[in-house]
C-alpha cells in the first residue's frame, strides 16, 4: 500500500534537499536509505476535465517504477510547487518515488522548460507524457521535447485527430532522434494481430497481395488512419490520396473510413480481394470478442478471438519500457503522411 507525504516548497532550489529529507523519513527511522531513480517522468496536463484521470495514471506508473515524476499542471487548478515522497512495499523491496507538482498555468514556456531542466535527475532517461491539446503549436511542448528521450501522446479520442496526426508527421521529421509513442497506434495491437491471423494460413497468404479494397469502421479517425497505414506499410502500398493506395504493381486499393462507435474503438475491418472478403467485427453480444470470417472463393467458417483491449496506464507503461523508437510505427506514420497529403 502506498503512503504519501507532501510539502509545499517556496523555491525550486530547495527541492533537492527537501526530497532527500523526505525520502529519509519515508524509508523509516534507523534504516539505511538508498533511493533509486530509473527515469524522469514528466507529465503535462492542460485540460481540467481530464486532470484527475491523468494524475491517477501517472501516480500508478510512478508507484511501479522508481522515478522522479514532475507534473506540470497547466489547468489552473493547482499553483506553486509541492514535493512529495511516496513509499511502497513490493516483493520484499521498498520503492521510494519522488514527485514534484508544479502549477504552470501562469508561467511562460521558457520558465517551464528551465524548471524542468533544473528538476530532472541527470543521467536518467526523461519520458514526456504530453496530454495537452496542442503539440508543435505549443512552445512548451517543443521546449520539453528537447529534454526528452521519449515522448508519449494520444492522438485518438479528440475532435482534432487528423490535425494531431499531421503534427506527429511533422514531429517525426523535426525530431528523428526522439522515440515517439502514440497510444492510439499502440491500442491497435490486437487488431493488427487479428488481421495478421487471416494470412497465417499459407493457403491464403498470397491473397494479401491481391487486395482491392480496405474498409475500416472506427470511433477514432486516428486509429482508422493508423490501421490502414500499418497494413499499407507492411506490404509496400503507397498512399496516393486519403482514399486510395497504390500497390507496388500499380494496382489501386480503395480505402474507406467510416466513423462509427465509441472513441478509441475500431468496430469493423473488411479486406476485399478479387474473389474473397476478410471480415473482422466486434461481436454483437460481447464487445470484448471479435468475429473473424472469410467469404467468397476462399471461404472459411467464422471463428472468435478475444479482443485484448489494454488500458491506458498499461499502454503508457509499455511506451516507457519500450524506450527505443518503434520502426513499425515510424513506417506506419510515413504511410499515414501519404493518406493525409502532408
Amino acid at each position, binding site marked *: 500500500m502506498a503512503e504519501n507525504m507532501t510539502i509545499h516548497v517556496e523555491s525550486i532550489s530547495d527541492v533537492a534537499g527537501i526530497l532527500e529529507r523526505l525520502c529519509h523519513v519515508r524509508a523509516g527511522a534507523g534504516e*539505511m536509505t*538508498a533511493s533509486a531513480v530509473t527515469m524522469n517522468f514528466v507529465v503535462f496536463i492542460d485540460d481540467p476535465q481530464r486532470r484527475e484521470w491523468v494524475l491517477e495514471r501517472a501516480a500508478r506508473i510512478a508507484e*511501479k*517504477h522508481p522515478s522522479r515524476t514532475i507534473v506540470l499542471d497547466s489547468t489552473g487548478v493547482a499553483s506553486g510547487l509541492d514535493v512529495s515522497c511516496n513509499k511502497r512495499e*513490493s*516483493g*520484499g*523491496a521498498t*520503492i521510494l518515488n519522488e514527485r514534484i507538482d508544479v502549477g504552470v498555468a501562469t508561467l511562460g514556456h521558457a520558465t517551464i522548460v528551465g524548471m524542468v531542466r533544473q528538476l530532472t535527475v541527470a543521467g536518467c532517461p526523461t519520458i514526456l507524457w504530453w496530454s495537452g491539446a496542442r503539440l508543435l503549436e505549443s512552445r512548451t511542448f517543443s521546449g520539453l521535447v528537447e529534454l526528452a528521450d521519449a515522448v508519449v501522446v494520444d492522438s485518438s479520442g479528440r475532435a482534432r485527430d487528423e490535425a494531431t496526426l499531421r503534427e506527429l508527421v511533422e514531429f517525426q521529421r523535426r525530431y528523428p532522434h526522439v522515440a515517439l509513442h502514440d497510444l492510439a497506434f499502440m491500442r491497435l*495491437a490486437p487488431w*493488427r*494481430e*487479428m*488481421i*495478421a*491471423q487471416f*494470412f*497465417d*494460413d499459407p493457403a491464403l*497468404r*498470397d*491473397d*494479401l*497481395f*491481391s487486395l482491392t479494397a480496405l474498409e475500416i469502421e472506427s470511433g477514432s479517425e486516428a486509429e482508422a488512419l493508423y490501421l490502414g497505414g500499418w*497494413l499499407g*506499410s*507492411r*506490404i*509496400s502500398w503507397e498512399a496516393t490520396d486519403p482514399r486510395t493506395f497504390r500497390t*507496388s*504493381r500499380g494496382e489501386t486499393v480503395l480505402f474507406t473510413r467510416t466513423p462509427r462507435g465509441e472513441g478509441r474503438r475500431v468496430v469493423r475491418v473488411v479486406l476485399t480481394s478479387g474473389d474473397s472478403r476478410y471480415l473482422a467485427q466486434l*461481436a454483437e*453480444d*460481447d464487445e470484448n*470478442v471479435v468475429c*473473424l470470417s472469410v467469404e467468397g472463393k476462399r471461404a472459411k467458417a467464422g*471463428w*472468435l*478471438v*478475444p479482443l*485484448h483491449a489494454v488500458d491506458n496506464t*498499461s499502454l503508457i*507503461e*509499455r511506451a516507457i*519500457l519500450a524506450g*527505443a*523508437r*518503434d*520502426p*513499425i510505427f*515510424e*513506417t506506419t506514420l510515413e504511410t499515414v503522411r501519404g493518406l493525409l497529403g502532408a
Partner: protein
Amino acid sequence: MQTEVTTVARGDGQATNPLREGLATDRIADPCTIVFFGAAGDLTKRMLMPAMWNLRLEDILPTKFGIVGFSRSPRSNDEFRTDMKAAVDQFSRSGPAKDPLWSDFAQHLSYISGDFNDRGAFKKLRGTLDANDKQLGTAGNRLFYLATPPSVFGTIIQQLSDVGLGPKDQAEGWTRIVIEKPFGTDLDSARSLQAEVAKVFDERQTYRIDHYLGKEPVQDIMALRFANVIFEPIWNRRYVDCIQITAAETVGVESRGSYYDNAGTLRDMIQNHVLNLLALVAMEPPISPSADHIRDEKFKVLSAVRPTSAEQAAQMTARGQYGAGIIDGKQVPSYRQEPDVDPNSNTETYAAAKFLIDNWRWADVPFYVRSGKRLARKYSEIAVTFRQIPHRIFGEMGDRIESNTLVMKIQPEEGVSIRFNAKVPGPKMHIRAVTMDFNYGTGFGVTTAPAYERLIGDAMRGDATLFTRWDAVERAWELVMPTLECWKATRAEDFPNYAAGAQGPANADALLAADGREWRKI
C-alpha cells in the same frame, strides 16, 4: 539504434506472414491436433488444458486446431468439454472461461475413452485424427502428449505405431511426441524407454519436457550470460569461488505419496531440473540460439561433470527426510505420516550434492546443489559467489568485506540481484555490503506466462530448444546413479533428520562446512 524493417511488395512464395513483424507473436504454429494421453489426470486439469486455453486467448494457437483427450475413464465428448471447462475455470491464470469464446474453443475438443492396451481405442483415435484433418483443417499434423504414468509410455508409443499413427506411416504433415518427466526411474529403465521411443520416433520428433526449463528466469540465464559483456569474462575458476543451486519447496508430497515414495528428491528434482540449471550456468557459449547448438553445449558440460563412485557418494552428497514441524504457522505431519507413504520409508525428501566440472573453465570450482520439500521457504535460485578481493586496503576499520554474489532468482521472485560492497556515507571509510535488485515484473511491467504455455507452444512450432535431448538425459542419470545405489544400499538411520519448516538436515551443512563454506539461507 533503429531496427531494420522489411516491407514486402509481392506475395510470391512468401514463407512468412509479413503482417506479423513487430507483433507479440511472430510465428504461429502450423494447424494441428494435440492428443493428451492421461486426459482424466491431474496434470491435464491443472496445467495442460488451462495452458491450451490461454494459448488460445493469447492468439498463439493456430485457427485450425483440434484437441483430443484420451483416457481410461468413460465419458462423452460433451462430458469431457464440461470437465475441461471446470478445470479451466478453476486453474487458468486468466480466470473463468466465458462464452462465446469458450463455446468456440470447446467445439475443437473431443474425447476417446479406452485402455492403453486396447487396440480398438487407438484405431478410433486414428479415425478422429483423420476426421479432424478434414473437418478442422489440421493438415495431418499431430502432437501426442504423454501425460500418463511412465509405466505406460512404451505401450502408448507401440500402439501409435501399430495403428499407423507413427511418423513413418505419415503421407503428409508432421508427428511429434511430448514425454513428461520422469524419463525412466534409473539409467537402465531410461535406456529401455529410449529404445522403445526410438523405434517409432526419431530424436527430432521427441520432446522430453522439463517444465522448469520453460520458466522465464531459467531462459534468462542465457541472456544474462551471453547478451552482456560484463559477466562472461569473470565466469570462470579465476573469479568464481563456488556456485549454489537451490530448489526449495514448502509443500510436502501432497497427493503424490505413492509416486514420491518410490522416487525421492534425487530422481524427482536433481536428476532433471537441477542438473539442467547447472548445465545452463556452466556451459560454454553456444554458436547460435538454435536448439541443437544449445543442447550440444549442455551435453558437453554435463559430460565434463566428474562422476562419483558409490563410495565417494557418501562424501559428496547429503540426504534428509522431514519430520513433523510448522509451515506458515501450521503444524504439518512428518513424511512418514503422509498418505500412501511407507511408515518406515527410507526415501529422501531432501538431497544435496557437490559436483565438480573437469574442464578449463571450472576446474576445482564446487557446484553445490540442493532441493527439498517442507523447507523454510519456497525458493529457487542460482547463486554465483565470487572470490574474495586479493588485497584488502580497508582492513583497519574492522568491517567485513563480503564476497560479491550474483543471484539469479527463479521463484517465487523472478529476477537478478548483485551484492557488492559500498562505502557507508560519512567521514569514516566503513564498508558495507549492499544489494542491487532487478525484478522482472517491475523491470518489464509484465507477468510471465506459466512454463507449460511456453513449452506446448514451442512443441507445436517445432522448437526443441527448451526440451531435453536424450544424450543429456542419459548423462544426468549416469551422474546420479552411484548416489542412488549408495542410498538404496544404506538405510538412513537418522531419518527423519530435519523438521518441516527448517533449512534442511545437519549433514547438508556438514557437506559445505568440510570445504569451509556454508549454504545461503533459504
